[in-house]
């Protein structure tokens, strides 16, 4: 009953964000928002960019790749040099080259996979200047690419799709910075730490315990970690750590923050293509999958933990509390983890590795569907649009008409690019998972035995290939193999989708718009939503079912066996 009210409040917040943040985003990217135009002008002058000059898709892509390369180098350098740099009260040494590579790629690609424990590995300067920075820019880049693709639909006979520098700067300044700052203050007000003073030593005379409590600039990283659908937390336990996610209120705030931009972008999309119904159709597909997965995973976690029951503690009134925090309980914990796996955020407030087999299945499959429900900032919308193009194509084949989407003819080039964008993730994930299970170095990473150990490996590579960052954290990822393979997985999962999307944006923008007629296949009604859901579920289901059957499904079916 209580939980229904929580969901209702969340839905209300998201509805407001859909309508108003969505409309604001459209105004930001079309240049009508100007309250920081002074700062914007200074930025363009320093960058040597003419904001009035638009780019063709190739130039847009080159800018994006060059900026990503520069960001990668700086992040890597900061992590390697942290021992010599200030703001390092714990005198932590440099991160190893392979760990720095994996971490730099991870934050660059909006993944935030973490093969390290923040409070024992990263100096305050690294957390701030290497990692928090990327949490802003990677989200802004994702949003920029989504907007560029939508421009491809909304323009006709155009050669350009926008200006990468302008889109990125605007996303950072007008959207991420103000919301993250206000939300950061809320986190701290509730109890998240935010200080540059080092850890503090406290002795409790009651129980004789002495604790060294880690601290740092946490609260304001927490807000952008969620808002930017990044997920990389300051502490090892991520959102489960009470110093990072202290109360039930911050827990719900986190869920709202990570969902708000991906949800709002469907409104932005509708407004830009001149029909809100088109955006609503995409939102409906996202919302339906999200609701079913939340219900399924919540139900699975409300069941008793089999290992705890086998040990004689049969009464588990809330369900599976292993790896969960008392202040959140089972349902709110599950909501957080489902929302973060379905948005490419990957933050956790409870331990996925300790979820029931079907609970873990819920989280894992949420990522395998391609992070589109609603997906990450920008990446959710552009990946879903790839699925929409394939759905339109299949619909066109079924009725024997040339497929059109939003007034644009969908022809061979578009279908090829969309298929490439949709298939690159499953191919990368499955190939690298295959390699990992074939090599001793890959198998050595698993912490649990039996099918659960395989799930740890599959989960890790699915998470990185989808730029999610959620982990079955028992896996020991800080090895040469996982640092290297994971880095490749994340890079391909990010740029292997982004670049086809930009090419698609260019191809679409150049086409003339054809006016809709009675014969046009509608893409703003329930039929289309069902078709789109079918495509998403069939592509995800068919590619991953064999792997899933070796992991969570086998574990669920092995009644009474322990490994």
């Amino acid at each position, binding site marked *: 009953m*209580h939980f229904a009210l929580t969901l209702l409040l969340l839905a209300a917040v998201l509805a407001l964000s859909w309508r108003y943040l969505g409309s604001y985003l459209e105004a930001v990217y079309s240049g009508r928002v100007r309250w920081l135009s002074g700062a914007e002008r200074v930025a363009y002058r320093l960058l040597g960019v003419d904001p009035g000059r638009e780019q063709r898709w190739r130039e847009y892509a080159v800018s994006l790749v060059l900026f990503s390369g520069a960001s990668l180098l700086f992040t890597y350098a900061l992590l390697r040099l942290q021992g010599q740099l200030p703001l390092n009260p714990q005198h932590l040494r440099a991160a190893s080259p392979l760990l720095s590579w994996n971490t730099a790629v991870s934050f660059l690609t909006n993944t935030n996979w973490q093969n390290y*424990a923040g409070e*024992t590995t990263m100096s305050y300067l690294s957390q701030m200047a290497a990692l928090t920075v990327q949490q802003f820019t990677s989200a802004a880049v994702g949003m920029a690419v989504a907007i560029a693709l939508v421009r491809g639909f909304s323009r006709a006979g155009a050669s350009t799709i926008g200006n990468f520098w302008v889109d990125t700067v605007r996303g950072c300044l007008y959207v991420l910075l103000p919301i993250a700052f206000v939300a950061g203050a809320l986190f701290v007000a509730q109890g998240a730490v935010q200080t540059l003073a080092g850890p503090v030593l406290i002795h409790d005379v009651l*129980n004789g315990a002495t604790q060294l409590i880690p601290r740092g600039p946490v609260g304001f990283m927490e807000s952008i970690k969620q808002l930017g659908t990044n997920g990389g937390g300051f502490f090892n336990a991520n959102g489960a750590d009470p110093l990072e996610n202290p109360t*039930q209120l911050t827990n719900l705030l986190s869920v709202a923050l990570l969902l708000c931009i991906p949800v709002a972008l469907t409104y932005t999309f509708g407004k830009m293509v001149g029909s809100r119904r088109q955006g609503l159709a995409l939102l409906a597909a996202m919302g339906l999958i999200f609701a079913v997965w939340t219900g399924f995973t919540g139900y699975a976690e409300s069941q008793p933990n089999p290992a705890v029951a086998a040990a004689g503690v049969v009464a588990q009134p809330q369900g599976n509390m292993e790896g969960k925090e*008392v202040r959140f309980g089972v349902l709110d914990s599950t909501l957080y983890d489902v929302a973060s796996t379905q948005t490419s955020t990957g933050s956790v407030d409870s331990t996925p590795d300790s979820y029931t087999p079907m609970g873990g299945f819920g989280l894992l499959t949420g990522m395998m569907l391609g992070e589109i429900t609603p997906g990450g900032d920008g990446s959710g919308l552009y990946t879903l649009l790839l699925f929409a193009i394939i759905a339109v194509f299949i619909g066109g084949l079924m009725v024997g008409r040339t497929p059109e989407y939003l007034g644009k003819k969908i022809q061979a080039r578009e279908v090829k690019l969309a298929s490439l964008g949709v298939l690159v993730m499953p191919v990368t994930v499955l190939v690298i998972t295959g390699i990992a299970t074939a090599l001793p170095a890959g198998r050595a990473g698993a912490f649990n035995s039996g099918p659960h150990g395989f799930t740890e490996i599959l989960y890790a590579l699915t998470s990185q290939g989808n730029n999610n960052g959620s982990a079955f954290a*028992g896996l020991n990822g800080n090895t040469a193999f996982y640092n290297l393979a994971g880095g490749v997985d994340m890079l391909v999962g990010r740029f292997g989708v982004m670049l086809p999307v930009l090419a698609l944006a260019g191809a679409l923008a150049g086409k003339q718009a054809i006016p809709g007629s009675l014969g046009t296949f509608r893409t703003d009604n329930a039929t289309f939503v069902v078709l789109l859901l079918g495509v998403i579920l069939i592509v995800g289901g068919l590619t991953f079912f064999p792997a899933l059957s070796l992991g969570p499904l086998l574990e669920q079916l092995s009644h009474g066996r322990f*490994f």
Partner: protein
Amino acid sequence: MLTDRRTLAVISQLRSAVLLAVGAILLFGLAYPFAGTGVSQLLFPHQANGSLTARGSTLVGQPWTGPQWFHGRPDPDNPLRLDGAPGASGGTNLGPRSRQLVAAVRAGAAKLRGMGVQPTADLVTTSGSGIDPDITPQDALAQVAMVSRSTGIPESRLRRLIRTMTVGPELGFLGPSYIDVLQLNSALARIR
């Protein structure tokens, strides 16, 4: 000629790329967290510094042993490591069909039964953070008889104490009710 122009264009873009990366580090990596720290220290100094009391942080669980205290969850004492750096927070990551988890829960339950406490699920499972500061009212009530026997405080007094220390759900519906173990035991110490 054409390739030259293209090369020049790429060099100019490379310049913009490096400058934007540096600018982002200055703005989001330094100015933003510094400003956030300033605001936090000014408006919420207690929270921003870790919700510290004389006996520890109310947000970080502590190990409680002996029948005279209410016990929290059996989390590993990660942050207590004192080799110069704090330990890392985090859960056990044991899966739902792990023999190790069966053994750990069995041992925890036996220990509680030995102290006269009927084990509840929260008191034999570990948390996601490894430093869960809270227990549910039911977990506290299960320990009333033990604490009363060892301290001489009547059970009814302890039950009243548990009721007054229970917080949540926030807004009346967010999550379950819970009790901060450090604050509960501090109040217990005052009664004695």
